[in-house]
């Protein structure tokens, strides 16, 4: 009997994986899409970095005073920054000249600049930055100009302090407070700011539930397709007369769908991990400490159990519904409706914090069996296993119930006679 079941499962997997829509849509595309996205981000980042590396500004001095010369000297002292000083002219001509020099911005030092600076009054600099593509590179280059001028502002502040109160240390006056951040995670003191750790954990704890969600949705679509395609390709009647119990046929379809969903999930997670690694450079110091706060092994065991049960529940539910569909399109449409009530509460848990919701909303969210895997996935760094253990029991009950329902529906005539088109108008059937 085991070999008959194995034959059925092998056929399911083979038939599904040879389907170009499943092979490309659920396995190859996620495997390639995320790395390509990561590559695109890396290429863009490198392009921005390289274009910023050789900064280039044009300066037009309409003041001609000592302080405007100080400003130009300051700009020239900045490493890797090319400063093109333009002869005084009208703004329009200066902009054209600046553009010809491929400068990021034109900085104009207006008349009265030196007089104001010398007398301790606020000074003004005018910048003109051309925007052509509105892309990330232009924005980054404009930000570079802003940073240059801000640093000149700091230079001016220090100058004013030194002039007005020579006895004071200007650097201390400008930065009188220094804060050294430490965070305490699970009793461990880590020399990192809480915001850095939060950023890192939010991203990591968001990825795990996201991966779970993707697997669940993929598995539901595959399971529903596995049933509906039998009707559409008119293979169901022969399948049901084979010397195999209907429960074994159902179980083989559940297992086959789960295997394909798992392959899809692995492809997605591998791709997504590469994509995220291209973004995590910004975590800086926090990334170095990730190993110190990784979840315990029992967390992974419970999470694995939750994901498995959630998959079993989702695929069983998808099959119960797909039995009533007329064809693959109908089955996928109804799964679309079914996914919404699963995704909505799960998204709320993924984005929000379960503990921060009202008790009534918590009860509502946790009454949906699909939310436990998502809620527990977020607990990766907290170390609280309660919700995971409760979820294992709760989803098990649901899974047993839905599996029982699926086996009843599967062994009834409904599997042959039900032909709902789920919202689409059916063509009038020709009577045989």
């Amino acid at each position, binding site marked *: 009997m085991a*070999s*008959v079941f194995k*034959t*059925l499962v*092998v*056929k399911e997997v*083979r*038939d*599904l994986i*040879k*389907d170009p829509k499943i092979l490309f849509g659920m396995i190859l595309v996620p495997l390639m899409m995320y790395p390509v996205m990561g590559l695109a981000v890396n290429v863009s980042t490198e392009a921005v970095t390289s274009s910023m590396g050789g900064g280039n500004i044009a300066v037009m001095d309409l003041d001609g005073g000592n302080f405007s010369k100080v400003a130009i000297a300051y700009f020239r002292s900045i490493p890797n920054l090319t400063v093109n000083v333009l002869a005084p002219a009208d703004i329009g001509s200066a902009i054209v000249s600046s553009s010809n020099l491929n400068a990021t911005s034109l900085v104009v030092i207006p008349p009265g600049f030196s007089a104001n600076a010398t007398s301790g009054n606020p000074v003004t600099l005018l910048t003109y930055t051309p925007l052509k593509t509105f892309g990330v590179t232009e924005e980054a280059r404009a930000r570079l100009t802003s940073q240059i001028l801000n640093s000149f502002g700091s230079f001016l502040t220090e100058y004013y302090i030194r002039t007005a109160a020579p006895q004071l240390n200007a650097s201390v006056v400008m930065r009188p407070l220094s804060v050294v951040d430490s965070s305490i995670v699970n009793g461990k003191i880590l020399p990192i700011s809480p915001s850095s750790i939060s950023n890192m954990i939010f991203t990591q704890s968001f990825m795990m539930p996201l991966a779970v969600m993707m697997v669940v949705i993929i598995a539901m679509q595959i399971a529903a397709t596995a049933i509906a395609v039998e009707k559409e*390709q*008119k*293979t169901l*009647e*022969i399948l*049901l*007369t*084979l*010397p*195999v*119990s209907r429960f074994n046929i159902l179980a083989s379809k559940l297992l086959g769908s789960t295997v394909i969903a798992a392959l899809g999930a692995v492809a997605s997670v591998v791709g997504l991990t590469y994509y995220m690694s291209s973004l995590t450079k910004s975590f800086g110091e926090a990334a170095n400490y990730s190993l110190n706060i990784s979840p315990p092994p029992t967390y992974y065991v419970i999470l694995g159990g939750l994901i498995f049960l959630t998959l079993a529940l989702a695929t069983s539910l998808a099959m119960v519904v797909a039995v009533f569909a007329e064809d693959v399109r109908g089955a996928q449409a109804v799964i679309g409706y079914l996914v919404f009530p699963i995704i909505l509460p799960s998204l709320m848990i993924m984005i929000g914090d379960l503990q921060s919701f009202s008790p009534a909303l918590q009860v509502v969210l946790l009454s949906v069996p699909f939310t436990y895997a998502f809620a527990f996935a977020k607990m990766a760094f907290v170390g609280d296993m309660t919700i995971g253990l409760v979820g294992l029991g709760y989803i098990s009950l649901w899974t047993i119930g839905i599996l029982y329902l699926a086996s009843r529906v599967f062994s009834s*005539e409904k599997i*042959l*006679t039900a032909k709902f088109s789920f919202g689409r108008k059916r063509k009038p059937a020709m*009577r*045989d």
Partner: protein
Amino acid sequence: MNAVEVSKLRKVYSTIVAVDDIDFVVREGEVFGLIGPNGSGKTTTLRILATLIRPTSGSAKVFGHDVVSEAEEVKAIISYLPEEAGAYKNLTGEEYLRFMGALYARDRQDLERMVDDAEEISGLGERLKDKTGTYSQGMKRRLMISRALMLRPKLAILDEPTSGLDVVHATHVRRLIHKYVRDFGVTVLLSSHNMLEVDYLCDTIALINRGRILAFGTPAEVKRSVGATNLEDAFMKVMQVG
């Protein structure tokens, strides 16, 4: 032992009586034809015998096994070919046959014998290496018939076995059905619209209309009973009376 025993069989779909208290027997080793117009109850009867649907009342037995209470035993000795049957379009013809054969074969040798048989029955040759999604309707039908016969079941239930086949292949299939009955003791219960086919193949026929059997016997007996010279005339006369 009779291959099929049907007694007071009735099937009602909400308000429609598809099969209305019919009785008939199919003897082991014969070709039995269930003949009737569209919507007469042929397919419903065949589906009940194939364990796909349950009768509303009455009983149906295949080699002594009740199709409801002993469905698993029945499924092990029958091979059912629906009128509209398809193959898994992403599998090749050979993969499909091997999948089907593996569920029945006693060992590897038996499986290889089945696949060889199917290759001969279908006449698909090298096309068996192609995905069935690339097959024409006729090629799919030949694949389906070869699946049903390669298993050498005790009872083959064939719903319109040659529908969609050209004359050459339909003739080939009819000869093979005869061969499997003669050489391997397969009992065949079939339905057909083709009176030439019925006359050529069937040892016994039952003419059915509106769920009731109107005539029963050998093709010659049925023709004689209504004074017809051929089966098509006999069919028309019986249907008009019915």
